[in-house]
C-alpha cells in the first residue's frame, strides 16, 4: 500500500537529485533529527555544529548518486552521520556527563522508586558508552533514535542480521555489566 509520507519524501528526494537546489526541503525535514543525534554523540555544541554541517554538505554533494532502496531517506543521512561521528571520535571524546543529555525524569512512581530507576537508566547508558563502537552505534540507533533494524543496517552498512547480532550482544553485555554493577540491596 502506498505510504503518502514516503511518497512525499520520495518526490522530494527525486527533485533534489535532479536539482540540488531542492535539497532545502530535505534539510528542513531532517535537520533537527540529525543534529540531535549528532549532539547526543559528541555532546558539545560547537562540535555538533561542525559535524552536522559536514553531514549535510556531504549529503548534498552525494545527492546525485543517492539510490532509493525503498528505505527512508533518513537512513542514508544516519549512514553519513555514523561515519562522520566515527571520524570525529578518533580525535574527540564526549565531554559532557551523560545525564546532561538523557532525560531521566520518570513520571508517576514514588520518588524513591523514581530515583532508583533513574539510577538504573543512567548506569545502563553509561555502560552503553563503554561498549565496542559497533554495538554502541547499533544500540543508540535502535533505542535512542528508534530506528528499524533494516534502516540501521543501511546506516551502518551491514546486513539486518548483523545488526540484530550487534544489538543482541550489546544488550546482553549490558545486562551482565549491570548485574555486576548493581548495588547490594
Amino acid at each position, binding site marked *: 500500500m502506498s505510504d503518502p509520507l514516503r511518497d512525499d519524501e520520495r518526490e522530494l528526494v527525486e527533485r533534489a537529485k535532479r536539482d540540488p537546489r531542492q535539497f532545502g526541503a530535505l534539510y528542513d525535514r531532517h535537520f533537527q533529527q540529525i543534529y540531535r543525534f549528532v549532539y547526543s554523540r559528541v555532546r558539545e555544541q560547537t562540535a555538533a555544529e561542525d559535524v552536522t*554541517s559536514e553531514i549535510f554538505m556531504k549529503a548534498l554533494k552525494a545527492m546525485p548518486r543517492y539510490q532509493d532502496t525503498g528505505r527512508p531517506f533518513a537512513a542514508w543521512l544516519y549512514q553519513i552521520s555514523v561515519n562522520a561521528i566515527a571520524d570525529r571520535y578518533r580525535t574527540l571524546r564526549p565531554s559532557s556527563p551523560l545525564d546532561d543529555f538523557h*532525560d531521566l525524569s520518570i513520571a508517576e512512581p514514588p520518588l524513591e522508586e523514581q530515583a532508583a530507576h533513574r539510577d538504573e537508566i543512567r548506569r545502563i547508558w553509561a555502560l552503553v558508552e563503554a561498549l565496542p563502537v559497533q554495538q554502541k552505534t547499533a544500540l543508540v540507533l535502535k533505542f535512542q533514535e528508534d530506528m528499524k533494524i533494516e534502516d540501521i543496517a543501511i546506516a551502518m552498512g551491514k546486513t539486518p542480521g548483523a545488526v540484530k547480532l550487534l544489538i*543482541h550482544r550489546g544488550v546482553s553485555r549490558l545486562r551482565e555489566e549491570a548485574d555486576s554493577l548493581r548495588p547490594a540491596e
Partner: protein
Amino acid sequence: MSMQHDPDLDDVLQDQELRHVADLLREARMTEAPLDDAFRSALRRQLMNQAWGMGGGGTPWWRKMFGPTGMVWATAAVGVILIGVVVVLTATNQPGPSDQVVVTSPISNQSAVRLQQPIQVTFNQPMNHPSTEAAVQITPATTVAFSWHENTLSVTPTAGDLAPNTQYQVTIGPGARTASGQSLTAPKTITFVTQPPAAPSPSPSPSARPTPVTALAGQHLLASIPEGITNVLWSPDSSTVYFVTGKGALESVPFAGGSPTVIAPDGVTSVAINPAGDQLAYIRKANIEILAIAPGTTTEVVPTPAPVLVGWTTGGVEWVSADGVYTAAPGGQGKVAPLPATGTVTAISFAPDGVHIAYTQDQSLNVMDLGTGKSTVLGLPGAHFLGWSPDGTGIMYSGAQAVVLADLGGRNTTPLPAGEPSWSSQDEVLLGSDVNLFVMRSDASGQTKLADGTFHLPDWAPNGIAFTYFRGGELFAASAPAPAPPATAPLDAATSVVNAFMKARKDNPDRANAYLDDNGRKAYSSAIGGLNLQVTGDPSFSRYYLLTAQVTGSHPDTAQFVVRIVLAHNNLDVKTFEETLTLVRTQGSQQFLVDQAAAGSVLTLGSTAEVVSVDVTTTSVKVTFDSDLKPETVTAGVIILDSKGKQIGNAPSYAKRTVTIDGLDLKSGKSFKLVVLSTVQDVSGNNIAAEYDLTFEGPAGKSGDRHKDTSPSPSPQPSPSATPSS
C-alpha cells in the same frame, strides 16, 4: 511503567531480562540538544549557496575540486564559496578569534577587474606555502602558478590574462595552514568579475585614439574672472555655459565664445537648470529665484528655513534647507524628506534625476533616495563626492587611491586612476589634473591621454563632446574627439546607446524607454506579450555584457548586438539569457535607438567551461572560453561550417583559453556556423555542459577587419542572433 513492544526485536531479545534492559534504554528520552537557530539558518544558506553552484546536475561538482596535481587546481564548486563566507562569520563565536586567519584581496567583490593582473590574496599572518597553495581552488577551471611576497600570495593564470566577462571565485580551503600550523577555521572565497576583452572591442580602445593626442579641438577661453568662478553649468543643448563668479554674480556665456551676460549681479550661491533648459533656478539672498530664460521673467520662492542647495525634479524646483529637502507646493512648500538630525550634515548636490541627493554626515558620504528617504553610505570615511553620471544612476567619489564609480547603492564599483573626473552621456570619463587629461570608458577600459597640460575640473557638456575646464583660474572650453575613428563611429555610437539602455534597465527602468523607438517600445510592451524591460525576481539582474557588436547595414545605419544578461543569487552568477538588439539610427536626431529585440531562453550557468567571446574576421574565428581547456579535445570539438554544412578552415589551434580557426574566407553577407561540441573538456576533465551553436555572417569590410561577434547558445536551439538563416 509502560513496556513497549517492538516486533523488530522479537527474535533478537527473547530473554525477559534482555527486554528489560531494552526498555530501560528506551526510557531515557533525549533532552533537547542546545541549538543555535542562527547556525541552523546559516547552514541552510550554505547548502543553498552550494546547491546553486551545483546547478541542475551534470558532472559532480566536487570532482572538479581535485584536478591534476601540481599547480593545477580546478574547481567547479560555485557554492563551496559562500560556505566560507558564512562559516567565517559563524566562527566568530569560537574561541581564539585573535588567532583567526583573515584573508583579503583588493579585487574582492569588484566588477570590471583588469585582465592583466594576478589574483592577489593577502593573509594576516605568515602562511605555510605548500599547504596554502594546495588549498587554492579556482572557478572557472584555471591552471595557475603561485608566488609569494611576505604574506601575500599571487595566483597567476598560466594562460597569462584572466578570462574576460567572467565571474571568478577563488577559494582558500581549510587545508591552508599558517606557518605555526593552524588551519583555517573555514574556507574563504574571493569573488570578482572581470572586464570585457580589451580588443577588439566596439568601445574605444587605446588604439582608437592616437597616444599621445593633441586631438582636442577648439580650445578657447570662455571666461576670465579675477574673483574666480564656481558652479559651472551647461545648458541641456550644450550651447551655453552658466557660472557663478567669486562675487556671486550668475553669468552665462555661449560655448562658441563671446562676452559673458550677467543674469544676476550678486548673492548667488547655488544654481540649477531644468531638464528642458528653459528655466534657471538659483539661490540668491536666502530666496530662490526662478528665471524663465526666453522671456527673461523671474519669479521668487521664499523658503523657510533658508535654502542652501537648489535643483530640479520633474515636478519643478526643489531645494535643501537645514533640516530637509523641500519642493514647491500649492500654498507654499512641501517637505520631501528630512535630513539626518545627528552629526554635521552638509548637502552637496542634487542628482540629475532630481530624486537623489549627495550629502555628508560628519565623515561619511551619503546618497539619499528622496522617494524613500533612505540613505546609503558610499566609500570609506572621508570620501569626497566627485560627480554624477549624466543619467543620475551613477556617482563618483574619492576612494583610497583613486576615483570610484558606483551605482547609487554603492555597488558595482569601478576604480579609475586618480584625477578630477567628469562622466559623459557617451559613458566616457574625463580625468583632469595638473599635468594632463585622460579619457576612458566608465568601466576603466580604453584609457587614453587626450592632452598634456593643466585641465582642472573638466565638465562634459550634455552632448558628450564639448567640455569646460579650468586653467590658471580661467574657464576654458574645448571639444574632445569623437568617441571612435570614423570607420567604427556607428558601432561606437550604437554601443553607447546599448550600454546606456542596459544600465537604465538595470538601475532605472523608467529611463530605458528613452532608448526605444516605436518598434522597440512594442518589442518591450508587456501588454502585447513583448519582452520585459525590467528584469525582476530572484535570481536578480546582476550584470550584462555584449557578446556581439556588429554593423549590419547603412542608410540608415543599423547595428546588431547580442547582450548576455547575467542573473545572480547571493552575488553568484547562476543563470543567463541573451537578447538580440537591433539599433537603427534615426534620421532626425541621428541617435541610435533600439528598434527590434528578441530574447533567448534562460539557461542555468553550469560549473563547466563557457564561451565568453568570439572574434570573427574574414579569415579567422577566435573562440575564447572562461576555463583552461584540454587542448587535445579542441581539435575535433570546435568547427566552422558553411551554409551547406560543410566544415571549413584549418584545424583549430589552442592557446591561452582561445581556440583559433584560420584559413577561412568568410564572405560578407554569407551565413556560417560555429559549433562547439560537448566533447570539449576543461583541464579538470569536465565536458562543457551543452553544445554551443553560433550562426554568424561573414563580416563586412576588408580582409582582416575585425568584428566582435559572438552568440553562443545551446544546441539545438538556435542562437537568438538575428541572422537570416535562423
